[in-house]
């Protein structure tokens, strides 16, 4: 049985799983982007906070996803919620790190000029630092998104109804076939590639001014 006909024949189950998978990723990334951006700004301002938050977020990444989702499900119940929370925690490191690095890389002369002209700290951040750090921040979001799309499959073990389900089912049955596993893996890869491509496009557009102006 060809993989394509299998996917078409089983679209009744796979379709909703694709939708759920995308929803889980989108929700986790939206929250991780917001939280990560805020933490990243603070990390750029304070060396001590930077060490602390980068330590915590990289430690989180070393916890096996299977175990993290399991632990979170004790508190958040089974289904999508523990997976979304877990994915947010995983996505933080690249977002925080890149936001902080991007802001720190802004030429001090540029921020000095901005302050010297009477911009409030919030205006310096919004009008100067974040726009100039945008390409780096987008880079962090890309890394995190691709990672989260893949890890979300493990969420099936705590009952998330995403593309982990067909894989888990196939692996759990003695009659499971490679085709069944691929029916989960291929849509996951496709989602990852599309998300990465879209974010890369946004990154290119945002980099235009900043990259050309790198020496300015």
């Amino acid at each position, binding site marked *: 049985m060809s993989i394509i006909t299998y996917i078409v024949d089983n679209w009744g189950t796979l379709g909703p799983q694709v939708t759920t998978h995308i929803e889980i990723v989108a929700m986790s990334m939206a929250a991780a982007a917001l939280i990560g951006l805020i933490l990243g700004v603070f990390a750029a301002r304070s060396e001590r906070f930077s060490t602390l938050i980068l330590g915590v977020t990289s430690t989180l990444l070393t916890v096996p996803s299977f175990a993290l989702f399991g632990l979170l499900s004790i508190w958040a119940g089974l289904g999508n919620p523990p997976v979304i929370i877990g994915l947010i925690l995983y996505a933080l490191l690249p977002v925080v790190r890149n936001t902080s690095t991007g802001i720190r890389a802004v*030429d001090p*002369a*540029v*921020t*000095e*000029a*901005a*302050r*010297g*002209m*009477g*911009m*409030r700290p919030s*205006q310096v951040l919004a*009008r*100067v630092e974040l*726009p*100039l750090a945008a390409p780096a921040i987008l880079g962090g979001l890309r890394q995190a998104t691709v990672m989260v799309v893949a890890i979300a499959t493990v969420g099936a073990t705590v009952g998330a109804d995403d593309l982990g389900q067909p894989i888990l089912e196939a692996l759990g049955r003695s009659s499971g076939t490679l085709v069944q596993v691929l029916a989960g893996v291929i849509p996951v890869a496709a989602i990852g590639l599309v998300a990465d491509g879209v974010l890369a496009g946004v990154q290119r557009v945002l980099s235009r*001014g*900043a990259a*050309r*102006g*790198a*020496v*300015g």
Partner: protein
Amino acid sequence: MITFDRVSKRYGRVTAVGELSLEVASGEIVVLAGPSGCGKTTSLTMINRLIEPTSGAISIDGRDTATMDVNALRRSIGYVIQQVGLFPHQTVAENIATVPRLARWSRRRVAGRVEELLELVGLPPGDYAQRLPAELSGGERQRVGVARALGADPDILLMDEPFGAIDPVVRVRLQNELLRLQKVLHKTIVFVTHDIDEAVRIGDRVALLSQGGVLEQYARPVELLAHPASAFVAEFLGEGRMVRRLALLRVRDARLAQPNGSGLPTVSVRADASLRDALDAILRADGGRVTVRDVDTVLGVIDSESIREASR
């Protein structure tokens, strides 16, 4: 008028500026000069409170700056730095519009102001308004930096080694442009440099600082070069003070001799030339005398003796 009243800045035990008292008169260019570590940049940035004094007060037209809203204060003072610090993600026009936009000017008024300022600094708006900073030469960038500082037409301009990173030829051109602009604008300008030649060329007055922000002498350049107040000042001024000072004096201010019977010397200088140029002409002329002309009118004759007299 900007007044420093016993202003000090200390970092722990290190004194960057010690009890500095200084008055900058409105409409004048005052240059803060001195070797590195003399606190000149610290003194400058205490005016717009990028650095806050440890003690003492700075007032503008009698108002203590410490009592003013810091961002309102900064918007009322133009600020130009050596690295320019243009916003690389914004066009030249957007950069220049920064302070007017912060002050919430109308779109049309901002656009008009940007065009006016680009004309003022000699960059045709049609060519330059939509460029990014990376597409400009060093000299052009600093012109945009000056235009941006003049954005909302501040009375005061602070310039921190603005031409320090620019090659000598363009540098002299920018210095001349600044002097030309100042004839029209009459701003109160505080200008920091470590280059004494720039200081005496640009400044109406020069404040010479030594290590720890100690004011060694505050005088007009002609006075400074003729009568250095201390060995430190004399050393900082360097060799050939009296000859360099001639560049600051005009031929028309010297006492000219009337031409005698033997006719006018063939070599001539313009009345608004410097005494340095006149001396150069005298050294070239056969008789040791040159004719002084104001356009076509002969004003008299000048020789080395009248230069010596005028330079006392």
